[in-house]
């Protein structure tokens, strides 16, 4: 079985999702569930840290695409950080940098969400 893990933490009005391992057709539903859970609890500021993501397939990319409209409709965003060269290449090939903001580090991304919920 392919190895894939999702870690979720909350901080500073932003939900951080850390991806680890292989995100492909088999594991894509896990990411889908993670996004759905955030949306269900009305958390729309989503930062996906890809530091330990070693592979992403187009089904994996599709999950990002499937949720971006809903998230932005609610004034949130999905931002990506810490992409490895290999993973970035796949994002780039399919034209993702046009649609998603991609940052080197989490702290750069965190300041860029529009609406900050009052804490």
């Amino acid at each position, binding site marked *: 079985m392919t190895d894939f893990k999702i870690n979720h933490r909350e901080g500073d009005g932003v939900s951080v999702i850390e991806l680890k391992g292989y995100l492909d*057709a088999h594991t894509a539903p896990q990411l889908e569930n993670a996004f759905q859970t955030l949306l269900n609890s009305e958390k729309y500021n989503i930062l996906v840290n890809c530091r330990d993501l070693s592979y992403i*397939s*187009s*089904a994996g*990319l599709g999950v990002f*695409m*499937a949720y971006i409209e809903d998230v932005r409709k609610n004034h949130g965003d999905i931002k990506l950080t810490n992409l490895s060269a290999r993973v970035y290449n*796949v994002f780039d090939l399919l034209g993702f940098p046009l*649609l998603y903001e991609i940052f080197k580090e989490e702290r750069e991304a965190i300041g860029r969400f529009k609406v900050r919920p009052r804490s």
Partner: protein
Amino acid sequence: MSIKKRQQRRDTHKPVRPTTVSSAEILPLFEFSQIVNSSLDLPFILNTLLLTTMGKLMVSRGLVMLRRDGDIFEVVSAKGVSSSVAGTRLTIAEPPRGNILLHRMTTKGSDWISFLKELQQAVLHPMISQQRIVGFISLGQKISGSGFEKKDLELLESLSNISAASIEKANIVEELKAANREVDRKLQQLNTLFDLGKEFNLGLDDERVVRLLTFSLLGQIGVMRYVVYLRQNDELRPVAVRLDDRPPLSEALTSLDSLRRPALVSDLHGDDQFKFGAASLHAIGIEAAVPMMIQNELRGLILLGKKLTEQPYSQADLEFIYSLGNLAIISIENVRLFREALEKQRLDDELKIAREIQQGLLPQTMPVIAGFEVAGINVPSSQVGGDYFDVVKKSDQEYIIAIGDVSGKGMGAALLMSNLQASLRALAPFESQLPAATSRMNDLTCANTGLDKFITFFWGILNVETSTFRYVNAGHNLPFLLRSDGSVERLDRGGLILGVMKTLTPYEEGEVSLNVGDTIFLFTDGVSEAMDENGNDFTEERLERLLLEIRNASAQELLTKVKCDIEAHARGVLQSDDLTMLVVRRT
């Protein structure tokens, strides 16, 4: 050529004619050559070329065009003129191989000359690398107002040609990069197909397959609006919808039924066959339709809206989506076939049990009855009909002889038959009144079964002392009584089929006395309705003729002969119903 000279040539790409360039200008030329040759960045090379020439020749306007296809040249860099000219494409038929002073040219018939003149260009020079014109550099008037001298034009030629080689090199690198990216993209597509193929092999349910399919459409192609249809009960049903409008009406889809290849909606407009469907798809922003095929049959359809990039769908996109769709539909089909196989296996198992139940209910050995021969046979069909026969000793003098046929097949029939046997065996020892017993069996059957279940049933009591046979026929095929003198009687007294309604009118009892050589032949409809390959029944008439011919045979022989004749009649045809016969003969 000496090694040294060859080395020189390679270094400069295009020999600069040293005799015509003064020594004071060689050094800057060498520097320029080093700068542009060390770069693969096209914009940088062009910028350096323009700025160097404009600086050297004191010109305030200039532009560079690069060759695209054939005689088409595109303005890629401009200084001192409106930046909006970048991207302008000009056709320069028979491009000049030497410099051209534009004020000497007539504009007649040449758009490109008037275009350059409008931009106040004065001189045009080709950039030639390996005999090929890769582009042009064009300059405006010198700021000093003086005309271009010979040495100016020679410098322009040198700079142009040095740049030409670098441009060519940068172009090749760009092409390689583009080709590499295309290979990467293809690889990514293959990975996607592989990734999904692997996952689909796990035998996912339809919903999950469609979900993964849409993720791949979203991720790989950047399709943000789509509908996926699957054919269910001969109708295309939307199973995944991401649209701003309602999905198209089924009439629109019907016209796409004969779509066999992926197609752009804009192409379908021109096809009479698809025109109607295309119009309604276009109305809701659908740009392409991709069929999902199994053996040349449309089993699903993917409708695609605008791509995220707003680019039109390329043939390669459509082919990829077509592969993806077919992968998905095959997986869905495989799961369906697997489920069907499982269901068939389950039915087969059930039939096997039903057959075991049925066979267990039939008498394993026939009782020996003094002065009589009894023989019975049951040949079950593959479906397991509900035939039943029994011979039960009631007392020293009396034996119960019974035959029945339960409606339906399989497990249901077997269970009802087992019910029948249970009530017969329970009632037999105590009940000597056949009509009353039949009424009770009918009422029991009515109470225990639904409207669609019934039993044709015949039973009688053979008294061996008096050689009489009393019977009740509840809607069963009339048994034959074959008299030794060659006459035939049918045992027809009785009443309604068991299980249809509660007993209102009592069953009638018939009685016959049996002489030596008389034979009672009982059978189920599997005998008279055995079909030949043309669909013709064996028929009771044929059975009667046969029985008359062989009426003097022993009970067992009689059975065997009838069975042989039926087999001859139904040769090569699958037996569709149980076949049951029972013979009682007075010896």
